[in-house]
């Protein structure tokens, strides 16, 4: 074999820089695409918000028209609806999801886990219209039968959305519980703590940053979900007076009206999208803050 020189190879160098360039290009275009979307939404929505003023957020009368002066532009009930629906779904989905994750990570025998984990991950890929349809033909009539009213309601949205965010919460939480060092668990058990005490006082706190991350992602999915909510929420622009009353969300309202909207109405929908974007940023920020506080 020939003696290898220590001289750098031009070809290899070029290959390296090319790969680096391609990666850079990918990263830059991904980020650019996101900023492009943000810029687009804000450039369409911001002028409207400035024109409509704070009443856009505080007024409860939503009567959109193509011309600004003929319409009433209050999205307060829709904004509140989005928050109610999201937090309710998180409130139901988190304990259920974490309980499932604990079961999968700590209790289920390996054979059960091998079947359940892929099935749960597959659930994350089911299109939302399927969940919505399930809600429409199963949950909504059931609620109407049990509690009266339309059936399409806050409660129906909670049920469907919490089911939809379960796969996200379960799979990420399961991973983070399984990633807790075994030493913690052994340390706790070796002191005579029961399995439940160990899970509650050591495993879940140690996995909390992952669990919180899963809830943040779930929240993102819940607040951004459109089709399924559209099908089961009832989409009434008014603040629901009970959990069995219909409700509208920012996403559903945008989707409902986008097809027809022109002029000021169209701008108003972009403004709603902008509000949604800001709300998501705030919620994610708060959640991140909370998770950073918890980790000692």
């Amino acid at each position, binding site marked *: 074999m020939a003696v290898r020189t220590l001289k750098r190879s031009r070809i290899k160098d070029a290959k390296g820089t090319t790969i680096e360039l391609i990666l850079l290009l990918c990263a830059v275009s991904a980020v650019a695409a996101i900023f492009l979307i943000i810029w687009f939404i804000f450039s369409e929505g911001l002028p409207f918000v400035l024109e409509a003023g704070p009443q856009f957020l505080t007024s409860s009368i939503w009567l959109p028209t193509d011309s600004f002066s003929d319409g009433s532009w209050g999205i307060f009930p829709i904004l509140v609806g989005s928050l109610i629906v999201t937090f309710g779904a998180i409130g139901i989905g988190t304990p259920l999801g974490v309980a499932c994750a604990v079961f999968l990570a700590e209790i289920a025998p390996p054979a059960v886990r091998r079947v359940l984990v892929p099935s749960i991950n597959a659930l994350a890929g089911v299109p939302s219209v399927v969940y919505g349809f399930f809600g429409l033909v199963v949950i909504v009539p059931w609620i109407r039968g049990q509690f009266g009213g339309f059936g399409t309601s806050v409660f129906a949205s909670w049920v469907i959305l919490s089911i939809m965010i379960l796969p996200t919460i379960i799979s990420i939480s399961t991973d983070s519980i399984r990633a807790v*060092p075994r*030493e*913690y*668990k*052994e*340390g*706790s*058990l*070796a*002191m*005579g*703590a*029961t399995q439940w*005490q160990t899970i509650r*006082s*050591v495993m879940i*706190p*140690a996995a909390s940053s992952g669990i919180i991350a899963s809830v943040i992602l779930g929240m993102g999915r819940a607040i951004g979900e459109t089709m399924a909510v559209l099908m089961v929420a009832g989409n009434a622009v008014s603040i629901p007076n009970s959990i069995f009353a219909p409700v509208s969300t920012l996403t559903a309202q945008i989707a409902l009206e986008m097809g027809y909207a022109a002029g000021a109405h169209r701008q108003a929908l972009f403004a709603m999208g902008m509000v949604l974007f800001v709300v998501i940023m705030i919620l994610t920020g708060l959640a991140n803050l909370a998770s950073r506080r918890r*980790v*000692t």
Partner: protein
Amino acid sequence: MDDNVEISVKNLSLWFGKFQALKNISIAIPKNEVTALIGPSGCGKSTFIKTLDRMNDLVDNVRITGEVIYKGRNILDDDTDVVQLRKEIGMVFQKPNPFPKSIYDNVAYGPRVHGIKDRKALNDIVEGSLRKAALWDEVSDRLNESALRLSGGQQQRLCIARLLAVEPNVLLMDEPASALDPIATSKIEDLLYELKREYTIIIVTHNMQQAARVATHTAFFLLGELIEYASTIDLFERPRDKRTEDYVTGKFG
């Protein structure tokens, strides 16, 4: 049974699947003494002490025969209250494993899971346990700091304090100083010397000087067998078995 015996092991064998890790071991662990287990890596020392507080239950595919008599009953029986057993026979691990919680919460963890809620009582237990573990003076002013910020030696003493807080009878220590520097190691050894007045201690070590310094009795394990068990002086100076002699004189291992 002899009053001076804390744990009496009879004909203990253990298999991981088809692999036999412990072979017919019989040994009597004396009360309020330090007993050292020595032997080359992989000879079954850890497996042996884990059997004493049923920590092998966490491993799949384990089969155990024989008896481990503690307080007059065979703790290998199915109806043993494992939680109570582990409360009485506590374990310190090779790698310090404080929980990702504050120093205070680490020590208070055991008492809390065993039902103590009173703030004053917990404070007393925490202080008492940290003092016994010779850590109090170093951490008394930062009990609310994360335990993970302590040095390795401090972490190990915290783990001992954490264990003492549940008032065990027996301390099982699996190479508690092997991850520590010499100064931290000598602190742990001093601590063992103090603790043996109140507790029965079984310590796994592959450091023969350490065994000689702290233990009254020493057991030599090899390939899952208990080769020799005697007072530490006898085992090191007058080994009866050729293999023990080879090991303690450094001919192998």
